């Protein structure tokens, strides 16, 4: 069953340039999709349409059967978005306060907020840091807090914009581990990257954008060879004729 249905989506930036052109895309519930492309290909713009932060100039975006334009709050509750820059996403003065920000916005009762936040922080391994100041966390911990802030709202889909940017090896492994665990738990995952190396081993589908259009879409093993023709570097293992290895090994 499709949870995301995009039809003929077109978006123009404020200066008149076309950001997305005629995007047709469906994503099934529980899938793990990698969205790749060079800088400026339109990846982040597409993600913002899934969350209702941008609305289509033409075409439709439907989340769990409901148009994003008709009910943006439904889209934001269903699709949790983790931004590239964790620092400007974190609004709370403590780890707990930040994770509770979304549920408070949903006007949940205090007991439900406490339960949901505690579960989200435990899931990303920040349960023992609930009273720490977010700006004292490491880069990987901040990224995990950003994920917890979205998880606390219990979304069905999580979209992550460049989740491994500026992280060291250990930070990448921690964040990747949590993403994989979430997928195993049934959450639909859409990861937006410009480097396939770290995440492709876990993906069920690879979509490559170029100049606002989908140019590659398929099972990673079958389509990854076409990546470099569209400005995305192939993983080193593929160059050597081998299968892509997980970074979690």
């Amino acid at each position, binding site marked *: 069953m499709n949870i995301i249905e995009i039809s003929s989506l077109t978006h123009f930036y404020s200066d008149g340039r076309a950001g997305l052109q005629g995007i047709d895309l469906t994503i099934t519930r529980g899938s793990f999709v990698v969205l790749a492309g060079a800088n400026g290909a339109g990846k982040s713009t597409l993600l913002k349409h899934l969350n209702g932060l941008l609305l289509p100039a033409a075409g439709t975006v439907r989340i769990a059967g409901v148009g994003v334009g008709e009910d943006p709050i439904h889209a934001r509750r269903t699709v949790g978005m983790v931004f590239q820059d964790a620092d*400007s996403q974190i*609004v*709370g*003065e403590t780890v707990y306060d930040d994770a509770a920000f979304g549920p408070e*916005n949903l006007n949940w009762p205090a007991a439900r907020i406490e339960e949901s936040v505690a579960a989200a922080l435990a899931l990303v391994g920040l349960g023992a840091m609930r009273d720490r*100041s977010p700006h004292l966390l490491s880069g990987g911990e901040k990224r995990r807090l950003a994920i917890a802030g979205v998880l606390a709202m219990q979304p069905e889909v999580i979209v992550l914009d460049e989740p491994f940017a500026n992280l060291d090896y250990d930070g990448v492994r921690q964040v990747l581990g949590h993403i994989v665990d979430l997928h195993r738990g049934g959450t639909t995952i859409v990861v937006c990257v410009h480097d396939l190396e770290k995440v492709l081993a876990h993906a069920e589908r690879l979509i490559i954008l170029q100049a606002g259009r989908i140019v590659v879409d398929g099972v990673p093993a079958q389509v990854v060879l076409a990546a470099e023709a569209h400005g995305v570097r192939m993983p080193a293992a593929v160059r050597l004729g081998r299968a892509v290895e997980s970074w979690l090994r």
Partner: protein
Amino acid sequence: MVALVFGYNEKPSPLHALDARVKLAALVAISLASLKAGLFTLALAVVAALGLLAFARCSPVRCLAALKWYLVLLLCVVLARLLTTPGEPLFDVVWLPASRQGLLAGLELAGRLLVIALFGLLITFTTRPSHIRASVEWFLRPIPFVPHQQAATMIGLLVRFIPVILNQSVELGDALRARAIDHRRNPLRRMTYVTMPLLRRTFVTADRLASAMEARCYGAQRTVHRFHLTARDWSAMGLVACFCLLLAGCP
């Protein structure tokens, strides 16, 4: 280091357990009472604030170290009052117009500002920002035409983003020093090179923050924090009232 003091720290102290509304009201009352206080009672209030900080498990020495530039500012205030207030000369030196009345006025003003800063620090150290935000919202709610939720959120964000902006300014300063900004002699020019990119970064951060808040369903209907006044809160209010009477009544 500074951020560690100017922020909430979870500790098992009775001050941490007090209702945020009581603490905010106490800060306002003590600030107003200090306007009437003399030098002796201001000194007493400073000692009380440092004692309460220690009671809340925050090292008073660390607090004063974090406030070092504020203390320099207070010293400037004392000097300015000392040298500009007419009165009985303090020294028999013609070129140094320092007066006894100026010294007293400067010490009183600096004392008041120090009392307010130390009690403010005590509140930020012992109170969750979300509780400060909720109590500001609670106090603003009865005032008509004031968007209390937005005002409280703005205060919360301000507290959250001061360390971020400070870190950005340090990063910018380092980057400029790496490109020999110290060789520029004009201080205004140097300040412009730091200020303009810092403002730009701050606005970009604010823009991203707005998107992130929107993505997490920020709106008017939010969960309201429920306060519960206990016997400890009433006792604290009584103590603060007595302390304010002492502060305002004694010379």
